[in-house]
């Protein structure tokens, strides 16, 4: 028997980004005891990095906006694979969730009449993103954190969950370790919310931090839940490309929202070419009209730089492939040009995009008010995830809920910028509410001691392998090999042969991960932590590749060069992966329920 400590809560929330914090606050408000676990310190989750804003149809800047337009934009962006119930709830509830943040102390930028200011973003018809300069995520997470710490929530910082326990077909708790000291812990709970974010770390070029190893997906999958839409990974069009050490770091879409334009090495604004049919009617046909739009002219249509991310990313790839890229394999993003239109242009840029100004100045020695940035696509967001019920956010495992980037459904095949921060709030709240309800209506179930022991042994296995020698190998090399494999073979542009290569490669890496070893002791040991993250990464990578192989068409974030067009035959279902007999992943097609009549009409009206 290995030693461990036991903690007990009604509701256990895994993940303290926006979704986890919001869920914990809601559950706690419902009067149940809540534990909140996160891998980093509190307030450092991915949410802190979000820049551009949170989407909510408050209509403060353009009074034509309302939930119906937001709903239609989200569905169109998601290519109608979205869980439409989630898209409906999201569009309807986001404004209240944003106002609630203000009541908890958030200080958003203001309109002239003193209300919350909203800005333009890709795929949103009207200015819709509430924001604070380009540090909206910081404002959001800090507000939730500072409110949350006074709600009686027990926080376990720097703890990693490695296993969920299911007993008698119901969730029973979780197993994890404390990163600082390496203590092992059992968390008993009547319901569990996974809000662990995405799996960007499966790729080499990514805007995601070390935390995003897809733990929540793997934990839920292991517990028997469905993973859905895993083929849809969002590659953000604008990541930094130079210098090499910062490759992948995000350049917010807000730059384009403020008037930034994309040019190739010949100085041409290439985004005006090849505008997709379903967006033609909404897109500017001259540079002049595009500029008017970002200046707030209600009669102008948006510039093509603000088309959806999947499209912009592929256009950039095309320019680079055809030899029209920038010196370091990207294209140019120019915001400095607005100085020719605005008298105080440089000041305006610094005011609206302070952290971008800072980031380029400090990391690349570039003054973005003077010269264009070099940018290229970077792995950014996981549209897929745990399949949940749209109203309650419960997975197919009773008592197991998922919210935020960890859950699938809202975004379909492609997420619109700004729709994630609102997703966290709307569905974080719902998950917390329903997890609390589930817990209140039930007694706790006991966790089998044998299962706990097995989880403890698995957690410590890397040390045993390290001590035994033999095939043992450090974990970093294995992680890098996976990142290269996925980047090359299941990246922005995919084909059958490459995906099969990736699937083979993943099997080999699973073998190697079985020998991943750690030296040293259990105190804050990143080698050990990385070894334990590998199985999650591999589970997710396999699910991504399996779904990517099966979807023989191109749609949203998923692009197959061997099937470059959208195929109506693939429009009616989501791909779902579940752990099958013998522990092997099984893939199936899940038919999408027909759109409710009234919503169908909403979509028609907003075509």
């Amino acid at each position: 028997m290995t030693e461990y400590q036991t903690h007990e809560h009604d509701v256990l929330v895994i993940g303290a980004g926006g979704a986890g914090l919001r869920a914990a606050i809601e559950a706690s408000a419902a009067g149940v005891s809540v534990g909140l676990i996160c891998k980093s310190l509190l307030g450092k989750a991915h949410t802190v990095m979000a820049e551009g804003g949170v989407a909510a149809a408050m209509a403060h800047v353009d009074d034509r906006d309302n939930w119906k337009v937001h709903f239609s934009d989200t569905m169109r962006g998601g290519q109608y694979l979205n869980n439409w119930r989630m898209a409906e709830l999201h569009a309807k509830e986001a404004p209240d969730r944003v106002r609630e943040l203000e009541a908890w102390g958030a200080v958003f930028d203001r309109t002239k009449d003193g209300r919350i200011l909203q800005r333009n973003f890709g795929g949103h018809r009207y200015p819709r993103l509430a924001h604070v300069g380009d540090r909206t995520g910081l404002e959001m997470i800090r507000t939730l954190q500072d409110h949350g710490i006074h709600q009686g929530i027990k926080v376990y910082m720097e703890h990693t969950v490695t296993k969920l326990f299911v007993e008698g077909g119901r969730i029973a708790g979780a197993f994890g370790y404390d990163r600082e000291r390496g203590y092992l812990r059992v968390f008993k709970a009547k319901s569990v919310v996974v809000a662990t974010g995405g799996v960007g770390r499966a790729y080499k070029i990514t805007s995601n931090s070390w935390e995003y190893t897809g733990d929540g997906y793997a934990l839920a999958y292991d517990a028997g839940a469905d993973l859905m839409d895993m083929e849809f990974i969002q590659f953000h069009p604008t990541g930094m490309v130079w210098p090499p050490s910062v490759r992948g770091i995000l350049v917010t879409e807000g730059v384009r929202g403020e008037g930034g334009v994309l040019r190739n090495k010949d100085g041409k604004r290439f985004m005006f070419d090849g505008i997709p049919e379903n967006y033609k009617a909404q897109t500017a046909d001259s540079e002049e009209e595009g500029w008017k739009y970002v200046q707030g002219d209600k009669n102008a249509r948006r510039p093509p730089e603000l088309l959806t991310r999947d499209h912009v990313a592929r256009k950039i790839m095309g320019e680079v492939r055809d030899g029209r890229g920038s010196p370091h394999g990207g294209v140019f993003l120019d915001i400095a040009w607005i100085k020719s239109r605005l008298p105080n242009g440089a000041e305006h840029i610094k005011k609206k995009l302070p952290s971008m100004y800072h980031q380029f100045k400090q990391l690349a020695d570039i003054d973005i008010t003077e010269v264009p940035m070099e940018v290229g696509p970077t792995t950014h967001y996981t549209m897929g995830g745990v399949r949940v019920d749209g109203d309650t956010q419960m997975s197919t495992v009773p008592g197991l809920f998922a919210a935020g980037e960890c859950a699938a459904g809202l975004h379909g095949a492609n997420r619109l910028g700004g729709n994630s921060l609102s997703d966290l709030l709307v569905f974080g709240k719902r998950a917390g509410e329903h997890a609390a309800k589930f817990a209140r209506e039930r007694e706790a179930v006991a966790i089998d001691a044998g299962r706990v022991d097995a989880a403890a042994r698995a957690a410590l296995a890397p040390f045993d392998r390290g001590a035994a020698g033999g095939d043992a190998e450090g974990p970093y090399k294995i992680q890098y090999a996976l990142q290269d494999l996925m980047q090359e073979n299941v990246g922005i542009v995919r084909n059958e042969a490459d995906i099969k290569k990736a699937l083979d490669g993943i099997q080999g890496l699973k073998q190697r991960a079985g020998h991943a070893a750690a030296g040293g002791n259990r105190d804050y040991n990143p080698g050990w932590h990385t070894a334990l993250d590998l199985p999650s990464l591999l589970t997710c990578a396999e699910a991504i590749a399996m779904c990517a192989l099966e979807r023989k068409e191109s749609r949203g974030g998923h692009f197959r060069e061997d099937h470059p067009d959208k195929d109506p035959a693939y429009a009616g279902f989501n791909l779902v992966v579940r752990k099958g007999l013998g522990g092997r992943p099984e893939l199936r097609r899940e038919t999408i329920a027909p759109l409710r009549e009234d919503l169908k009409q909403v979509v028609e009206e907003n075509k």
Partner: protein
Amino acid sequence: MSSTSATFRIWRGEKGKGEFRDYKTPVSEGMVVLDAVHQIQADQANDLAVRWNCKAGKCGSCSAEVNGMPKLMCMTRLSDLPLDQPVTVQPMHTFPSIRDLVTDVSWNFRVKQEIKPFKPRQPDAPDGTWRMQQEDIERVQEFRKCIECFLCQDVCHVLRDHHKHDEFIGPRFLVHVAALEMHPLDTEDRIPELKKAHGVGYCNITKCCTKVCPEGITITDNAIIPLKERVVDRYYDPIKRLLGIGRK
């Protein structure tokens, strides 16, 4: 600076006991200190403990002392350091050491918990919210840029040298109190605590905190001095005291 290498003298140890060890690693254009630490971790010392998240100066995780200066490792470029000598990298001094570059910063989280939270006035706009003008929130927005890197706590001599952790909340949390006190909607009164439990009087305006803040927050001038003035107004201004005014 192509295909050269540099030596990093990194503190390795646990709970305050340890030593500097030298690691030689290749450096390339644009690298920051955190990249070098990661390279060393991947190739030479798998268990080298370091905190980080965003690698873009947004999360405040990677604080350490580089060549004796409190810095975010992810925003400290090697090209700004003399690489003909070893670059020393050590954990923040003000907080207990856990291991290598990681310190126990939990005190900061406990301190925040003790500060009275935001308490807004009743909504007064017809739509059930509030109106605030941009110019009225600008100074609060400056304070809210804080990424909680705790570098200001690390340099403040009241904490670093005099260990007044029980009597003084430090510059980070004075900034936090200022953000609450100057929030146009807030109605709470934190002046009595500022004077006593929060120990604003310990600050003697050396401005060391302001100098190291990676977010460029003018901690001393914009946050601490106005708070000190509020305390003085409340407790030491005889006329106001007599009349019982001075509440904000």
